[in-house]
């Protein structure tokens, strides 16, 4: 599903490689942890999948399509098949939980009846039923992240990209979020999650890709190490 073929990335005006000669394949339905110290290239890795930018060298294939060849409208269509969850949630503070989640569907111009039905459904899935009219500011970190996850999965993505989703949460809350992500994964969504959280990685037996200074230093099943 996601294929990196000899991918390297340098940023403008910087000779250092953010990523260098990455060669790997993530299958449909996999749950992959991306670990490594700060500056290892985790965010670059995720942003390449999102096609925030193109690799400086090599190519990235999503469902066998080279992302570099995609036109603007095709990139937009591609992103509608992906969900993104951030460490800092990125919720719109002026909007209610319902509006925050509905936003992702409004952008795609779905009709309001479908939106209403779907949002309430998804809020139930993430464990926030009855909280639709609350504002993010009145919620705990774990609850906010659930709102962000609801927003990320509302359009039924094939791939869910998570950038340190438990980074701001205590271990107990993190565990709840991980359980939720695991459930989403069970329904067929491929998940790529960058994390620093040793406890989380150790507790969930998943494939772990280790990045260090732009290189893949390890790629194996289960456990945190580097």
């Amino acid at each position, binding site marked *: 599903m996601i294929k990196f073929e000899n991918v390297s990335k340098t940023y403008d005006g910087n000779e250092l490689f953010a990523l260098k000669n990455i060669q790997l394949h993530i299958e449909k339905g996999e749950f992959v942890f991306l670990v490594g110290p700060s500056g290892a290239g985790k965010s670059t890795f995720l942003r390449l999948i*999102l*096609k*925030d*930018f193109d690799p400086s060298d090599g190519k990235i294939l999503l469902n066998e399509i080279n992302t570099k060849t995609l036109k*603007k*409208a095709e*990139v*937009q*269509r*591609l*992103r*509608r*098949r*992906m969900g*993104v969850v951030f460490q800092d949630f*990125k919720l*719109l503070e002026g909007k209610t939980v319902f509006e925050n989640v509905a*936003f*992702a569907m*409004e*952008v*795609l*111009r779905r009709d*309001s009846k479908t939106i209403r039905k779907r949002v309430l459904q998804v809020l139930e899935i993430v464990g926030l039923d009855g909280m639709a009219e609350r504002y993010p500011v009145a919620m705990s970190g774990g609850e906010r992240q659930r709102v962000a996850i609801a*927003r990320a999965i509302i*359009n039924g993505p094939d791939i869910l990209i998570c950038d340190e989703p438990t980074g701001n949460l205590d271990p107990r809350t993190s565990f709840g979020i991980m359980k939720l992500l695991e459930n989403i994964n069970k329904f067929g969504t491929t998940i790529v999650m960058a994390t620093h959280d040793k406890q989380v990685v150790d507790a969930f037996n998943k494939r772990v890709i280790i990045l260090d200074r732009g290189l893949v230093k390890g790629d194996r099943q289960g456990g945190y190490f580097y």
Partner: protein
Amino acid sequence: MRTFFNFFRDAYHNIKRNTLMSTASIASVVAALIIMGIILILAINVNYVVKQVEESLEMKIYLSDNIADERVSEIGEFIKATPHVATVEYLSKEKALEEFASWFGENEDKLLQGYAQNGNPLPRSYVVKVDDAAYLENIYDTVMAQEGVTDVVYGKEYVDVLLRFNRAINMVSFVIVVILSLVSLFTIYNTIKLTIYARRDDVEIMKYVGASNAYIQMPFIIEGSVLGLIGAGAAILLIRGAYTMILGMMQVNAALPLSTTLAPFGMVIYQIAIYFLIYGFVIGAAGSLISVSKFLRTSR
């Protein structure tokens, strides 16, 4: 429809949230438009004067005494067929003498008598009016080349000065308008940049859920246009007030020769209002379009 309403609601909230920068944008549009307005009023008035002068401008084409009547009418037809000639009037020798004599008031009779005895020395002529003073010189050249035409006379120096003045005013106003437009454009560009910065999370999320560029840009473009239109509206009111005041002052000093040639108020304000609204809208929309496009380009 609902989304379109939402765009306007968002724009309204953003303008309110960004009071300082929004006010600065509106002020810059107002300032630009007021200066433009002054120039425009000047230009409209100069054009108005030019038009009045053009309408009264006459070209006299004198004919030789040695040509036959047929040739005279031939020349007349030729002049009529010349582009930008509005009216042609034939002046016979007798009529010319009458007109000439009329300048001398009470001594008219004696003068006519004298000429009647010694033969009338005044030539036959055509009096021509044109629809655009800029073509006088062309017409002069073509007509002068005709056989039987002895001389062509028009207020060349006067027309030249007027045309040059008109052109200079147009040129200077054009340059100033361009500079002021750039200033307004830049201010609105920056205001929208701040708005986008304040809403970068929204934009980022929209981007990641696959919103089209048009969808992301729309609220910002509406915001920019609204700022431009508010600025235009304020400028129209200010200019209207000022022009009414100046007209009032001129009516008090009715002796001023200028007051007779000042363009009527209705005509001026109508033209200016349309220019201003279009200008405000375009500058506002363009400024925000450039700003948001740049943001989308650098962030994707």
